[in-house]
């Protein structure tokens, strides 16, 4: 169970023959993911470590029936790669690339949303973009479409995880794993200011998933995604949610690595996020290990 990807997902890798694309294709295969092909324009027809390479996503999809694409294309071409996949009818597109210009992402995200609406109106399954600048996603025990270390996912469980930060996703997944709880699906949504999928988009999927009992949300300063998530939880969620917010001591106005992790005025402050979660009855952990205690407490209620 879990959401978005599972053992039946057929994955293509855009940029498979590049350094990152190659090493993560291997790691995903080791995890057990059905990686079916690669896409590298100009290298179509090549055999890459047993995988066929195609010149376009459309060709790869036609030949393999792929329904997920993961993108390792360099920043200048990354948004274009997203649009290629979306227009080829791939319903789930995951953009790993870091450093994509924000204006490119604005245009791509808007177009993907339009395609999504058109597809749904026509009775199709829609199009979803996750990322960019994200670690991807893992349904523990089934499939990984991302760059997370395989060895932190040894115990499939029933806790859903959504995070803006790559490293903290690993940290939280390992804590849940070590605590014997394990995870259902981990979704890294990315820390950039403009991303395809937000916390509030993922929460309803977990709410509807029979394989998930509770959800952990790892947020950070900047933006108002956490506040929007809290609002959604307050009005719609029956399953318990536990939160953590990174960067609570960071000074205002300074960009903390993630382009989105910046406090502007009174928007995106730790105080506004804490207040929003409090209002939604979502306990917020002060430290990462405390997440485990809060999840246990929430499940025992």
């Amino acid at each position, binding site marked *: 169970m879990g959401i978005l990807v599972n053992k039946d997902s057929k994955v293509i890798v855009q940029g498979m023959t590049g350094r990152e694309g190659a090493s993560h294709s291997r790691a995903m295969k080791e995890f057990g993911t059905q990686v079916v092909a690669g896409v590298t324009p100009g290298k179509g027809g090549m055999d890459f470590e047993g995988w066929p390479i195609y010149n376009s996503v459309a060709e790869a999809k036609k030949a393999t029936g792929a329904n997920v694409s993961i993108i390792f294309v360099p*920043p*200048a071409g990354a948004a274009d790669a997203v649009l290629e996949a979306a227009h080829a009818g791939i319903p789930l597109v995951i953009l790993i690339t870091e*450093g*994509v*210009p*924000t*204006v*490119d992402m*604005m*245009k791509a*995200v*808007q*177009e993907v949303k339009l395609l999504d609406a058109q597809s749904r109106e026509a009775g199709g399954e829609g199009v979803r973009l996750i990322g960019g600048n994200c670690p991807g996603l893992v349904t523990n025990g089934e499939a990984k479409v991302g*760059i*997370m*270390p395989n060895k*932190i996912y040894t115990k499939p469980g029933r806790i859903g995880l959504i*995070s*803006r*930060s*790559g*490293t*903290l*996703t*690993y*940290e939280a997944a*390992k804590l849940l794993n070590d605590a014997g709880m394990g995870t259902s699906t981990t979704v890294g949504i990315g*820390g950039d*200011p*403009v*991303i395809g999928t937000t916390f509030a988009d993922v929460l309803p999927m977990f709410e509807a998933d029979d394989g998930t009992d509770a959800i952990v949300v*790892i947020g*950070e*300063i*900047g*933006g*108002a*995604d956490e506040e929007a998530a809290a609002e959604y939880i307050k009005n719609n969620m029956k399953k318990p949610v536990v939160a953590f917010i*990174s*960067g*609570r*001591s*960071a*000074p205002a*106005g*300074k960009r*903390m*690595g*993630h*382009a*989105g*992790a910046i406090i*502007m*005025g*009174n*928007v995106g402050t730790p105080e506004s996020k804490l207040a929003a979660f409090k209002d939604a009855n979502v306990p917020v952990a*002060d*430290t*990462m*290990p405390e997440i485990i205690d809060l999840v246990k407490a929430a499940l025992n209620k």
Partner: protein
Amino acid sequence: MKLHEYQGKEILRQFGVNVQEGRVATTPDEVRQIARDYGDAVVVKAQVHVGGRGKAGGVKFSPTPDKAFENGEKILGMDIKGLTVNKVLVTKAVDIDAGVEYYIGMIVDRNVQSFTLMASAEGGVDIEEVAAETPEKIVHYRVDPVTGLRPYEARAVAIQAGFKGNLNKIADMMVKLSQAALERDAVLVEINPLFVDASGTPLALDTKFEIDDNAMYRHKDLADWRELEAEHPLEIEASKYGFAYVKLDDGNVGVLGNGAGIVMTSLDVVNRAGAKPANFLDIGGGAKAEIVYNAVKLVSKDTDVKAIFINIFGGITRADEVAKGVIQALKDGILTKPVRMRIAGTAEEEAKALLAEVNSPLIQMFPNMFDAAAEAAKEANK
């Protein structure tokens, strides 16, 4: 990349925005000459990348060329929040009382996944204060990233914000501001004050312009505008190595880790341990020993740093590579301050073995981030 006021104005001018005339000077004599050329009162404005330069005495009205010279002398070389003023912008003074001051700005807005146009009749003041105290006085409008702002939308926003004057001209300025933001990959661009004179004509008196660093590759003409002397020296060095680095005030613990999220959390942990982080340094993913070595070198150069806290969760990054980098820094005599680190994940055992071999009291490894941070805090507060 943050642009100076004169640079931001130059871009806006290229997009057809009516910008107040001005020229840059680096000596008081040049300031006087510009004032003479204008034959009128001028304003001498420090060009530094900090807010609140007016309050710090970096903006001065000068009724005569001699007064302009005097103000140039005062402002050039001045220290504003740790940065030296090397350039001033000399602009023709405007009789503010003969018109009204508004605010318009475009900002990347995560919540609408595009730019938001902001407009307020409360111009000429710190807009963040307006946002905090009277948010209803700012109109917010999502701009379509593909089409940009259309004139009819701009007019509607101007009307809603309560702007008076020539609506078509004001809307036209807003449209051009939107074009500049989209085509020049702005993160933020503001015109404040936007001065509207008695005839209703808008004029940009001051601007803030910041460009998306990720898009600099397609603005090579602007890369030459980067003035390294206007940035913190350690931040310049960090950018050479490709680190995300931020110098923090009043800190004593150097903080480095792999990934923005873990470094932010590390800052929180150091604070909880009773010390203050002196910096934020993200070495990125998959760092080899050499990168770690450079990171340690950079943080060690900061005289505020009394101890270093390294927090690594190795996925792609190998713990033994991190250990090798730190050990090499010790061997080369670069590392003279205690390093307390937590390295989990890939090749953790190999890292432990390497450190045991060196056996230096300066480097200690801990099984969790809290103990490592607590020890670093203890060392820093000694």
